[in-house]
């Protein structure tokens, strides 16, 4: 295994789905259901059984809109406000209307959600305004349940192939070029439609531990979706709205205030005092977190040590089996007992992820990107604050729309020279006698991301970032060296990461205002609704460099009153309350 072999195959399908984590499997199931004759391929760089952000499960639905607890209008309003107004509401509103059906479908797959004594969904309040959090105390079963459905529906699964570039022709998508991660053999997949569900760009900033894979996101989510969409000419929206999360220091996993909050846990400063009213993750909340640290009141902690034994035991049980179960090992190693000590938190490195913020490939309410036949769903598509249920639901939209699209389409012709060019690019690091290994290219890129792009954002630093990135790119293109197919996968990931770093700098420089709290805090600029109440769309320019333009926010479907607009700006606990 891992030795580099020369080879290339070509296969055809109606719908190619890249990424078998969350959105991808649901897209496959829905497409197959709507168009049983369609030939569908679900392709993953890892193994669909355990790939993606939820490889070990998930502890809850953070954004369920369940009749009796919340309305689609209320949810749409909340997310619009939480995302500082920059939101094409149609995609959020459709999600809010249809996600309940998806929950019921997941339930029928055998995925368990918390129910009360009457058998009703037991929804909790974590957000500022509405009630949307549905716990999954047995959420470790998600991937297995999904996999069973994929087998039942006879979806063709191809594991351990990494898509590296999309093929386009006749103004639409034509397929993808893929490389085997254990042999470096190529697979060209011709497809009438392509659905991308490749997750976040989670390996962009460098964790403070210095460990390249010690990321919040599954470290295999290295931004290929963003890079491939960019090189294919798709538009990417609001990339400057970074993902930055409040995490357990060093462990870099979520502290899970969404799990602990409804049971009485909360985010506190070093004095054990609450300083934010709402633990829901938003740019404004992260700004308060940052200010607390700057004000000398840190570190910031998750506080559980005031809770009753049985409450702590239940929190522990859930957090130590679901999503990031090594959390238990971590706390044991540090001697942290939730009953006695608070859990030290910190501010994460940056990434792109719409699951938590709004940085993603631009899509509409059908999950269509700006390229006909190309869809995106989940963390990499720009529907804000979309989380796991958003990935499932928009994955479903993509699958259904693609099933209709391919019924009327034939394969688009593409230029064979594109395949040769991509083979040359991919294999270049295998043709050298020695050089720089991919881990060093990646480390340097990500260290520079931390040095120059981590907010607060400063213009001069971002210009320096661009200069340094160009130097690393020259090294990457001319001197990167790999010894086997596994290292080649890392080399390709390093290339995606560098593309994302360039996009992050360009997008952040373009928006000359501050917005989204810490996510886009440009210290030289105030918020400027007059000039910047708009999306920014980044595409690959004619010169091969990122180009940005403004795009209007579509008229709201759900009106927001003037006095509701700043609900998320009022996060800080008032001094009188804090002193109690």
């Amino acid at each position, binding site marked *: 295994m*891992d030795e580099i072999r020369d080879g290339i195959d070509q296969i055809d399908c109606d719908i190619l789905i890249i990424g078998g984590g969350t959105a991808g499997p649901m897209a496959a199931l829905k497409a197959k259901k709507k168009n049983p004759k369609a030939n569908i391929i679900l392709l993953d760089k890892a193994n669909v059984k355990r790939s993606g952000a939820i490889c070990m499960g998930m502890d809850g639905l953070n954004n369920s809109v369940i009749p009796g607890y919340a309305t689609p209008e209320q949810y749409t309003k909340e997310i619009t406000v939480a995302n500082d107004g920059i939101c094409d509401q149609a995609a959020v509103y459709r999600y809010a209307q249809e996600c309940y059906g998806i929950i019921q479908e997941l339930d029928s797959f055998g995925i368990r959600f918390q129910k009360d004594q009457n058998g009703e969904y037991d929804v909790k309040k974590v957000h500022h305004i509405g009630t949307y959090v549905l716990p999954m105390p047995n959420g470790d079963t998600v991937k297995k349940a999904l996999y069973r459905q994929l087998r039942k529906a006879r979806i063709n699964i191809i594991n351990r192939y990494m898509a590296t570039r999309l093929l386009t022709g006749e103004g639409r998508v034509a397929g993808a070029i893929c490389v085997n991660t254990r042999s470096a053999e190529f697979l060209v997949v011709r497809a009438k439609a392509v659905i991308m569900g490749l997750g976040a760009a989670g390996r962009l900033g460098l964790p403070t*531990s210095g*460990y390249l894979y010690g*990321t919040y996101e*599954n470290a295999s989510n290295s931004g290929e979706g963003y890079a491939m969409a960019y090189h294919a000419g798709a538009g990417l929206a609001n990339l400057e709205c970074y993902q930055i999360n409040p995490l357990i220091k060093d462990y*870099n996993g979520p502290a899970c205030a969404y799990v602990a909050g409804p049971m009485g846990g909360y985010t506190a400063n070093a004095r054990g005092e609450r300083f934010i009213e709402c633990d829901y993750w938003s740019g404004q909340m992260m700004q308060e977190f940052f200010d607390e640290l700057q004000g000398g009141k840190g570190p910031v902690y998750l506080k559980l040590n005031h809770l009753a034994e049985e409450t702590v035991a239940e929190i522990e049980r859930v957090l130590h089996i679901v999503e990031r179960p090594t959390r238990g090992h971590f706390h044991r190693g540090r001697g942290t007992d939730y009953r006695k000590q608070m859990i030290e938190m910190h501010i994460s490195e940056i990434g792109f992820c719409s699951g938590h913020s709004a940085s993603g490939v631009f899509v509409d309410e059908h999950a269509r990107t700006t390229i006909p036949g190309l869809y995106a769903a989940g963390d990499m598509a720009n529907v804000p604050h979309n989380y796991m249920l958003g990935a499932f639901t928009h994955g479903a939209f993509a699958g259904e729309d693609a099933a209709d699209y391919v019924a009327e389409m034939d394969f688009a012709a593409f230029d064979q020279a594109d395949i040769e060019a991509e083979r040359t690019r991919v294999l270049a690091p295998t043709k050298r006698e020695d050089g720089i290994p991919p881990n060093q290219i990646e480390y340097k890129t990500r260290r520079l991301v931390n040095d120059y792009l981590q907010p607060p954002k400063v213009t001069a630093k971002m210009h320096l970032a661009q200069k340094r990135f160009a130097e690393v790119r020259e090294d990457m293109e001319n001197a990167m060296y790999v010894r086997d197919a596994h290292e080649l996968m890392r080399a390709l990931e390093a290339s995606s990461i560098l593309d994302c770093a360039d996009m992050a700098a360009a997008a952040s420089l373009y928006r000359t205002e501050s917005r989204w709290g810490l996510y886009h805090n440009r210290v030289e600029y105030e918020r400027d609704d007059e000039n910047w109440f708009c999306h920014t769309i980044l595409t690959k320019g004619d010169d091969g460099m990122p180009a940005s333009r403004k795009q209007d926010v579509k008229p709201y479907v759900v009106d927001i009153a003037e006095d509701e607009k700043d609900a998320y700006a009022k996060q800080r606990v008032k001094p009188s309350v804090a002193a109690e």
Partner: protein
Amino acid sequence: MPLAQTATTVPVVVNDDLCIADKGCTVCVDVCPLDVLRIAETAEGSKTAYMKYDECWYCMPCEADCPTGAVTVNLPYLLK
């Protein structure tokens, strides 16, 4: 530029006595999202899984899915 041989300690540990790679099992290798595990063959011809690449997200499918409980996921030293 020649490459160095810098040592690094790895977080995933496999108990050789419990590992059944000899019988053809590759579950941990198959499920790893980062694809960091491989099967090693000793001089005597016996097989066991091991962590070949220090690129671990400490996520735990290898430990959870191992049919004999042979795999333990520790925290990478840099962050533990």
